């Protein structure tokens, strides 16, 4: 199985509110609400840790779920978020974005 790496888009703003995470696309101001499990995956999306490792090391440890089910759900989630342009998904590690010169 090929590894999947995930990283948060730089064109977003996010804030944890209680158990949920609200993510806003700064490109079109669309809001997304992530539940507790999705928030954990979102926060672990550093571009360096494979998704499988995030699921096994974080999701399965914090929530009562089998690795197989957790990985399937995680894949669905990341593909959905990637479709909205707020998460990057790659088979290679994703380098951190170069900071842009502030205006």
């Amino acid at each position, binding site marked *: 199985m090929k590894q999947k790496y995930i990283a948060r888009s730089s064109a977003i*703003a996010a804030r944890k509110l*209680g158990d*949920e995470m609200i993510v*806003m696309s*700064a490109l079109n101001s669309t809001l997304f609400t992530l539940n507790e499990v999705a928030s954990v995956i979102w926060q672990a999306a550093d571009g360096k840790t494979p998704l499988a490792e995030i699921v096994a090391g974080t999701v399965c440890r914090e929530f009562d779920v089998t690795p197989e089910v957790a990985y399937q759900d995680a894949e669905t989630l990341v593909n959905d978020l990637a479709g909205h342009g707020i998460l990057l998904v790659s088979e290679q590690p994703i380098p951190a974005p170069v900071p842009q010169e502030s*205006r």
Partner: protein
Amino acid sequence: MAQLIVPSIHTVPVEVGGMVVLLRTCDPDFVRMLEDRYTGFAGSPIPPAFEFDVELVTSIGFDPEADVEVRCEQRRWVFRRGDFYAEWDPRSRRGSIRQTANPYSVDAVLRIVHSIVLAGEGGFLLHSASAMRSGRASLFSGLSGAGKTTISRLAPPDVTLLTDEVSYVRRQEYGYRAFGTPFAGELARVGENICAPIAALYLLEKGPTNRIEAVSITEATQRIMRNILFFAEEPDLVRRIFDSACEFVARVPVYRLTFFPDERVWELIR
């Protein structure tokens, strides 16, 4: 010898949210129109934060139905809509507006300028009515038809209306303050030019009975984001607006107010 005729320049300082924008024009009739439109907000002695030269033309030459467009080009803002074209350089504190002789174009430019300034300070313009009672302000938010005008119209005599359409929210050291605005809705009445600390924000819904319920902070944030007036699309500013909405929800109680449209609803708002 030809006489050199220099048209006299008239100025109208318009104060909203404690910030003055000075409007300059050569047309005395337009001055009267502005003074009438901004009754209670015009003529402030506070030094202006920004100055705009208003050039009146018979036609702006754009599609009159064109939506507002706001963009920043090399630190200079350009605003345009079917009825005006404006440029603004916040660093020089100067700007210009080309428009026909109507009060609505200036109104739109003022809203845009204030929304950008507020975004940099942690505040925002909110599509909501606001009113002051016992020294504290309540905000009533909702899209068209939610009941902003209705609840404003039902306000008892001890309530001072700050606006029935666009609330001016400014961050303070401890909490937030609402300022009256001249941006009127269906009530067609400008608010009072005063301010008060914000006690609560109510998300309006019409219903058969009056009741107040708590809402989750997630819902509150989503509803506020939906009702913030913001015209620019610069990602940095959009992020600031999002942060401001989250901060506001963390500091100000937000409730859902379901109300039957009669004066008894004000018994719930103290």
